[in-house]
Protein backbone atom coordinates (compact mmCIF):
# COMPACT_ATOMS: atom_id res chain seq x y z
CA UNK A 1 0.00 0.00 0.00
CA UNK A 2 1.26 3.50 -0.78
CA UNK A 3 0.75 6.23 1.80
CA UNK A 4 1.07 10.02 1.51
CA UNK A 5 1.99 11.56 4.87
CA UNK A 6 1.16 15.26 4.52
CA UNK A 7 3.55 17.75 6.09
CA UNK A 8 2.37 21.27 6.93
CA UNK A 9 4.60 23.91 8.51
CA UNK A 10 4.41 22.90 12.18
CA UNK A 11 3.46 19.24 11.70
CA UNK A 12 5.37 17.10 14.19
CA UNK A 13 4.13 13.52 13.96
CA UNK A 14 5.01 13.09 10.27
CA UNK A 15 8.22 11.15 10.90
CA UNK A 16 6.52 8.92 13.49
CA UNK A 17 3.83 7.98 10.94
CA UNK A 18 6.41 7.49 8.18
CA UNK A 19 8.59 5.32 10.43
CA UNK A 20 5.71 3.06 11.45
CA UNK A 21 4.41 2.66 7.90
CA UNK A 22 7.80 1.90 6.35
CA UNK A 23 10.05 0.38 9.02
CA UNK A 24 7.46 -1.53 11.04
CA UNK A 25 4.81 -2.35 8.44
CA UNK A 26 7.01 -2.47 5.33
CA UNK A 27 4.74 -0.24 3.26
CA UNK A 28 5.61 2.55 0.85
CA UNK A 29 5.19 6.04 2.28
CA UNK A 30 6.25 9.52 1.21
CA UNK A 31 6.40 12.69 3.22
CA UNK A 32 4.40 15.10 1.06
CA UNK A 33 4.91 18.86 1.51
CA UNK A 34 1.64 20.80 1.75
CA UNK A 35 2.41 22.79 -1.42
CA UNK A 36 2.00 19.69 -3.56
CA UNK A 37 -1.28 19.62 -5.49
CA UNK A 38 -1.41 16.06 -6.82
CA UNK A 39 -1.95 12.92 -4.75
CA UNK A 40 -2.57 10.54 -7.66
CA UNK A 41 -0.97 7.16 -7.08
CA UNK A 42 -1.46 7.16 -3.31
CA UNK A 43 -3.84 4.65 -1.73
CA UNK A 44 -4.15 6.40 1.62
CA UNK A 45 -3.60 9.94 2.87
CA UNK A 46 -2.38 10.55 6.42
CA UNK A 47 -2.81 13.97 8.04
CA UNK A 48 -0.49 13.67 11.05
CA UNK A 49 -0.54 15.48 14.37
CA UNK A 50 1.28 18.64 15.31
CA UNK A 51 0.67 22.35 15.27
CA UNK A 52 0.15 23.30 11.64
CA UNK A 53 0.62 27.06 11.28
CA UNK A 54 1.27 27.26 15.01
CA UNK A 55 -2.42 26.58 15.74
CA UNK A 56 -2.92 30.27 14.95
CA UNK A 57 -6.55 31.42 14.73
CA UNK A 58 -7.91 27.90 15.44
CA UNK A 59 -6.16 24.52 15.13
CA UNK A 60 -6.37 23.47 11.47
CA UNK A 61 -8.07 26.69 10.33
CA UNK A 62 -5.19 27.84 8.13
CA UNK A 63 -3.86 24.42 7.08
CA UNK A 64 -7.23 23.59 5.57
CA UNK A 65 -6.53 26.21 2.87
CA UNK A 66 -3.10 24.75 2.02
CA UNK A 67 -2.74 23.82 -1.68
CA UNK A 68 -2.61 20.08 -0.92
CA UNK A 69 -6.06 20.13 0.66
CA UNK A 70 -7.85 20.29 -2.70
CA UNK A 71 -6.13 17.04 -3.60
CA UNK A 72 -7.05 15.58 -0.20
CA UNK A 73 -10.71 16.45 -0.84
CA UNK A 74 -10.50 14.84 -4.30
CA UNK A 75 -8.88 11.72 -2.80
CA UNK A 76 -11.66 11.51 -0.20
CA UNK A 77 -14.42 12.07 -2.77
CA UNK A 78 -13.00 9.19 -4.81
CA UNK A 79 -13.70 6.96 -1.80
CA UNK A 80 -10.06 6.38 -0.90
CA UNK A 81 -9.11 6.39 2.79
CA UNK A 82 -7.97 9.52 4.64
CA UNK A 83 -6.87 9.35 8.27
CA UNK A 84 -6.46 12.53 10.31
CA UNK A 85 -4.73 12.16 13.65
CA UNK A 86 -4.93 14.86 16.34
CA UNK A 87 -4.17 18.08 14.40
CA UNK A 88 -5.14 16.09 11.30
CA UNK A 89 -8.60 15.52 12.84
CA UNK A 90 -8.87 19.25 13.53
CA UNK A 91 -7.92 20.02 9.91
CA UNK A 92 -10.54 17.57 8.57
CA UNK A 93 -13.26 19.26 10.67
CA UNK A 94 -12.18 22.74 9.58
CA UNK A 95 -12.18 21.56 5.96
CA UNK A 96 -15.73 20.25 6.33
CA UNK A 97 -14.70 16.67 5.50
CA UNK A 98 -15.90 15.69 8.98
CA UNK A 99 -18.73 17.32 10.96
CA UNK A 100 -18.31 19.15 14.25
CA UNK A 101 -15.30 20.86 15.78
CA UNK A 102 -12.56 20.31 18.36
CA UNK A 103 -12.58 22.80 21.21
CA UNK A 104 -10.25 23.72 24.03
CA UNK A 105 -10.11 20.89 26.60
CA UNK A 106 -12.73 21.38 29.30
CA UNK A 107 -10.12 21.64 32.10
CA UNK A 108 -7.98 23.99 29.93
CA UNK A 109 -4.94 21.71 30.35
CA UNK A 110 -2.77 20.20 27.67
CA UNK A 111 -2.96 16.43 28.21
CA UNK A 112 -0.20 14.04 27.24
CA UNK A 113 -1.12 10.61 28.61
CA UNK A 114 -2.14 7.06 27.70
CA UNK A 115 -5.88 6.52 27.31
CA UNK A 116 -8.18 3.61 26.58
CA UNK A 117 -10.49 3.61 23.59
CA UNK A 118 -13.51 1.43 22.96
CA UNK A 119 -13.90 0.42 19.33
CA UNK A 120 -17.57 1.07 18.57
CA UNK A 121 -17.80 -0.01 14.94
CA UNK A 122 -15.64 -2.19 12.69
CA UNK A 123 -17.22 -1.88 9.24
CA UNK A 124 -14.77 0.75 8.00
CA UNK A 125 -11.19 0.73 6.66
CA UNK A 126 -9.73 1.83 9.99
CA UNK A 127 -11.05 -0.76 12.45
CA UNK A 128 -11.86 -3.78 10.30
CA UNK A 129 -9.07 -5.71 12.07
CA UNK A 130 -10.67 -5.00 15.48
CA UNK A 131 -13.70 -6.54 17.13
CA UNK A 132 -16.63 -4.41 18.34
CA UNK A 133 -16.13 -3.42 21.96
CA UNK A 134 -12.39 -4.09 21.83
CA UNK A 135 -10.37 -1.81 24.10
CA UNK A 136 -7.27 -0.19 22.61
CA UNK A 137 -4.62 1.66 24.58
CA UNK A 138 -2.75 4.56 22.99
CA UNK A 139 -1.53 8.05 23.88
CA UNK A 140 -3.18 11.41 23.46
CA UNK A 141 -1.28 14.68 23.30
CA UNK A 142 -3.47 17.72 22.82
CA UNK A 143 -4.91 20.89 24.34
CA UNK A 144 -7.88 21.18 21.99
CA UNK A 145 -9.54 17.81 21.61
CA UNK A 146 -12.98 18.32 23.06
CA UNK A 147 -15.25 17.09 20.31
CA UNK A 148 -18.38 19.17 19.80
CA UNK A 149 -21.26 18.84 17.38
CA UNK A 150 -24.80 20.25 17.49
CA UNK A 151 -27.54 17.84 18.67
CA UNK A 152 -28.75 17.03 15.11
CA UNK A 153 -25.23 16.16 13.95
CA UNK A 154 -24.62 14.05 17.05
CA UNK A 155 -27.88 12.18 16.42
CA UNK A 156 -26.90 11.39 12.86
CA UNK A 157 -23.41 10.24 13.94
CA UNK A 158 -25.03 7.80 16.36
CA UNK A 159 -27.76 6.65 14.01
CA UNK A 160 -25.33 6.04 11.17
CA UNK A 161 -22.74 4.23 13.31
CA UNK A 162 -20.08 6.84 12.66
CA UNK A 163 -18.66 7.15 16.16
CA UNK A 164 -15.63 4.86 15.84
CA UNK A 165 -13.84 5.38 19.18
CA UNK A 166 -14.97 6.45 22.64
CA UNK A 167 -12.70 7.15 25.61
CA UNK A 168 -13.27 4.42 28.18
CA UNK A 169 -11.72 2.84 31.26
CA UNK A 170 -9.43 -0.24 30.97
CA UNK A 171 -12.52 -2.48 31.15
CA UNK A 172 -14.23 -0.72 28.28
CA UNK A 173 -16.74 1.24 30.37
CA UNK A 174 -17.42 4.68 28.91
CA UNK A 175 -17.27 6.86 32.03
CA UNK A 176 -16.89 10.53 32.79
CA UNK A 177 -13.58 9.84 34.55
CA UNK A 178 -12.20 8.16 31.44
CA UNK A 179 -12.90 11.25 29.33
CA UNK A 180 -9.61 13.20 29.18
CA UNK A 181 -10.89 16.41 27.59
CA UNK A 182 -14.66 16.79 28.08
CA UNK A 183 -15.51 15.44 24.61
CA UNK A 184 -19.20 15.11 23.85
CA UNK A 185 -20.25 11.55 24.79
CA UNK A 186 -16.56 10.58 25.18
CA UNK A 187 -16.06 10.78 21.41
CA UNK A 188 -12.43 10.18 20.40
CA UNK A 189 -12.87 9.43 16.69
CA UNK A 190 -15.51 9.62 13.95
CA UNK A 191 -15.86 8.84 10.25
CA UNK A 192 -17.64 10.65 7.43
CA UNK A 193 -20.93 9.34 6.02
CA UNK A 194 -19.15 7.23 3.39
CA UNK A 195 -16.83 5.77 6.05
CA UNK A 196 -13.56 6.48 4.23
CA UNK A 197 -12.44 9.56 6.20
CA UNK A 198 -11.47 9.05 9.85
CA UNK A 199 -10.54 11.70 12.39
CA UNK A 200 -9.18 10.66 15.78
CA UNK A 201 -7.46 12.56 18.58
CA UNK A 202 -5.31 9.67 19.97
CA UNK A 203 -2.03 8.76 18.26
CA UNK A 204 -1.94 5.22 16.83
CA UNK A 205 1.51 5.93 15.32
CA UNK A 206 2.93 6.32 18.83
CA UNK A 207 1.68 2.92 20.00
CA UNK A 208 3.26 0.52 17.53
CA UNK A 209 6.17 -0.96 19.48
CA UNK A 210 6.24 -2.64 22.89
CA UNK A 211 9.44 -0.71 23.59
CA UNK A 212 7.46 2.54 23.44
CA UNK A 213 4.73 1.32 25.75
CA UNK A 214 2.22 -0.46 23.54
CA UNK A 215 1.35 -1.86 20.14
CA UNK A 216 -2.41 -1.29 19.92
CA UNK A 217 -1.95 1.41 17.29
CA UNK A 218 -1.04 -1.36 14.85
CA UNK A 219 -4.72 -2.41 14.78
CA UNK A 220 -5.53 0.82 12.91
CA UNK A 221 -2.75 0.50 10.32
CA UNK A 222 -3.36 -3.24 9.85
CA UNK A 223 -7.06 -2.54 9.35
CA UNK A 224 -6.13 -0.25 6.45
CA UNK A 225 -3.93 -2.96 4.94
CA UNK A 226 -6.60 -5.60 5.35
CA UNK A 227 -9.26 -3.32 3.87
CA UNK A 228 -7.04 -2.54 0.86
CA UNK A 229 -6.35 -6.25 0.38
CA UNK A 230 -10.04 -7.09 0.32
CA UNK A 231 -10.97 -4.34 -2.17
Amino acid sequence: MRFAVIVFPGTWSDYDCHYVLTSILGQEADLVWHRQTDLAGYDCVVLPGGFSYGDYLRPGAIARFSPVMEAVVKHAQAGRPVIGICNGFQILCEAGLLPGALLRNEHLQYRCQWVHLRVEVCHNPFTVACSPGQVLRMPISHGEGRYYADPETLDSLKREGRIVFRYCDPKGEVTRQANPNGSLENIAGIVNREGNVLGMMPHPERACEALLGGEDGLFIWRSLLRWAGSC
Partner: protein
Amino acid sequence: MARFRAHVYITLKPTVNDPQGLTIQGALKQLGYEGVKSVRAGKYFVLELEALSSQEAEKSVEEMCRRLLANPVIEEFRFRIEGS
Protein backbone atom coordinates in the same frame (compact mmCIF):
# COMPACT_ATOMS: atom_id res chain seq x y z
CA MET B 1 -9.97 53.12 -3.34
CA ALA B 2 -10.62 54.25 0.22
CA ARG B 3 -9.09 52.85 3.35
CA PHE B 4 -11.24 51.30 6.03
CA ARG B 5 -10.66 49.77 9.40
CA ALA B 6 -12.72 46.76 10.45
CA HIS B 7 -13.10 45.66 14.07
CA VAL B 8 -14.07 41.98 14.16
CA TYR B 9 -15.33 40.20 17.27
CA ILE B 10 -15.58 36.41 17.48
CA THR B 11 -17.26 34.57 20.34
CA LEU B 12 -18.38 31.00 20.93
CA LYS B 13 -22.06 30.37 20.25
CA PRO B 14 -24.19 30.58 23.41
CA THR B 15 -24.81 26.83 23.19
CA VAL B 16 -21.08 26.01 23.26
CA ASN B 17 -19.46 25.56 26.67
CA ASP B 18 -16.69 28.11 27.28
CA PRO B 19 -14.41 26.82 30.07
CA GLN B 20 -12.07 29.79 29.67
CA GLY B 21 -14.93 32.23 30.27
CA LEU B 22 -16.09 30.20 33.28
CA THR B 23 -12.58 30.22 34.76
CA ILE B 24 -12.29 34.00 34.34
CA GLN B 25 -15.72 34.41 35.91
CA GLY B 26 -14.52 32.33 38.89
CA ALA B 27 -11.45 34.54 39.27
CA LEU B 28 -13.56 37.72 39.17
CA LYS B 29 -15.84 36.25 41.82
CA GLN B 30 -12.80 35.51 43.95
CA LEU B 31 -11.80 39.17 43.65
CA GLY B 32 -15.18 40.11 45.07
CA TYR B 33 -17.08 40.97 41.88
CA GLU B 34 -20.17 39.03 42.86
CA GLY B 35 -22.29 40.88 40.31
CA VAL B 36 -20.62 39.18 37.33
CA LYS B 37 -23.15 36.65 36.07
CA SER B 38 -21.37 35.44 32.95
CA VAL B 39 -18.09 35.81 31.06
CA ARG B 40 -17.57 34.70 27.47
CA ALA B 41 -14.04 34.77 26.10
CA GLY B 42 -13.50 35.62 22.45
CA LYS B 43 -11.16 37.01 19.83
CA TYR B 44 -10.78 40.52 18.46
CA PHE B 45 -9.18 41.38 15.12
CA VAL B 46 -8.42 44.78 13.62
CA LEU B 47 -8.18 44.77 9.82
CA GLU B 48 -6.96 47.65 7.67
CA LEU B 49 -8.36 47.27 4.18
CA GLU B 50 -8.88 49.06 0.92
CA ALA B 51 -12.26 49.00 -0.82
CA LEU B 52 -14.30 51.10 -3.23
CA SER B 53 -16.99 51.86 -0.66
CA SER B 54 -17.92 51.02 2.90
CA GLN B 55 -20.61 48.67 1.51
CA GLU B 56 -17.96 46.78 -0.39
CA ALA B 57 -15.68 46.68 2.66
CA GLU B 58 -18.59 45.32 4.70
CA LYS B 59 -19.35 42.62 2.14
CA SER B 60 -15.74 41.61 1.98
CA VAL B 61 -15.24 41.43 5.78
CA GLU B 62 -18.45 39.42 6.16
CA GLU B 63 -17.09 36.91 3.65
CA MET B 64 -13.71 36.77 5.45
CA CYS B 65 -15.53 36.00 8.70
CA ARG B 66 -17.54 33.19 7.12
CA ARG B 67 -14.61 31.63 5.28
CA LEU B 68 -11.76 31.92 7.78
CA LEU B 69 -11.99 34.19 10.81
CA ALA B 70 -14.89 32.36 12.47
CA ASN B 71 -15.85 28.69 12.42
CA PRO B 72 -19.65 28.73 11.95
CA VAL B 73 -19.95 25.33 13.68
CA ILE B 74 -18.93 26.80 17.03
CA GLU B 75 -18.57 30.56 16.71
CA GLU B 76 -20.48 33.76 16.02
CA PHE B 77 -19.03 36.97 14.65
CA ARG B 78 -19.88 40.63 14.47
CA PHE B 79 -17.91 43.57 13.14
CA ARG B 80 -18.00 47.28 12.59
CA ILE B 81 -16.28 49.29 9.89
CA GLU B 82 -14.72 52.73 10.22
CA GLY B 83 -13.63 54.90 7.31
CA SER B 84 -10.17 56.33 7.92
